[in-house]
């Protein structure tokens, strides 16, 4: 029962990742790709948290912190240069 639930959880996260990646590949504008990348990093963070709970490894939460900070800084940097471009 629990195993089936874990498969469902990871499948939902994977499907979200695939959809975000399709948007990253299709665009059509540069900001679309930036927000797709933002969503991908949030989904990766979700994966790490799910993995940490599944295998009882609390140390992985530190990775989630770093990923959250890096994704925020990346989006802000992209936005800064996008706005300076015009």
């Amino acid at each position, binding site marked *: 029962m629990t195993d089936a639930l874990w498969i469902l959880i990871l499948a939902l996260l994977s499907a979200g990742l695939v959809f*975000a990646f399709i948007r990253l590949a299709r665009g059509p504008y540069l900001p679309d790709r930036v927000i797709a990348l933002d969503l991908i990093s949030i989904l990766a963070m*979700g994966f790490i948290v*799910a993995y940490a709970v599944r295998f009882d490894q609390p140390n992985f939460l530190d990775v989630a912190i770093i990923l959250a900070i890096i994704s925020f800084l990346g989006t802000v940097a992209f936005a800064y240069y*996008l706005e300076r471009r015009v």
Partner: protein
Amino acid sequence: MLGEILVMALMLFGAFFMFLAGIGMLRMPDLFLRMSSTAKAGTLGAGLLLLAAAIHFGDFAIATRALAIIVFLMLTAPVAAHMIGRAAYFDGVPLWKGTIRDDLRGHYRASTHALETTAIPEEDRLPDEAELETRKPDLDR
């Protein structure tokens, strides 16, 4: 046992909301609507997953770490979404065809990027809808 059920339920809801964020990212018609799906559904999904982790581990230090990530996400996600939306608006990303009104149009000064309450003179405005329609959506513009 009860705690385990709660953890699994929170994980499931969190993963479901992240899935919804992915669907919104793929299916929403323009950038600004897509942005709302990542900023809200994505943050809610991540928050639920982290809450599940905080309950699962039960340890004070780990729960504090998980709650710190939730607070950080809730503080930064709207800021990042606003910055990228503002940059995209200046960059000339067109709105969806079904948009009824755009209150910002004609109120941003193109030279200084300042927002003003009075209407901006014609020569200092951002390019309007008709002009954006002719623009090609490419990466290198």
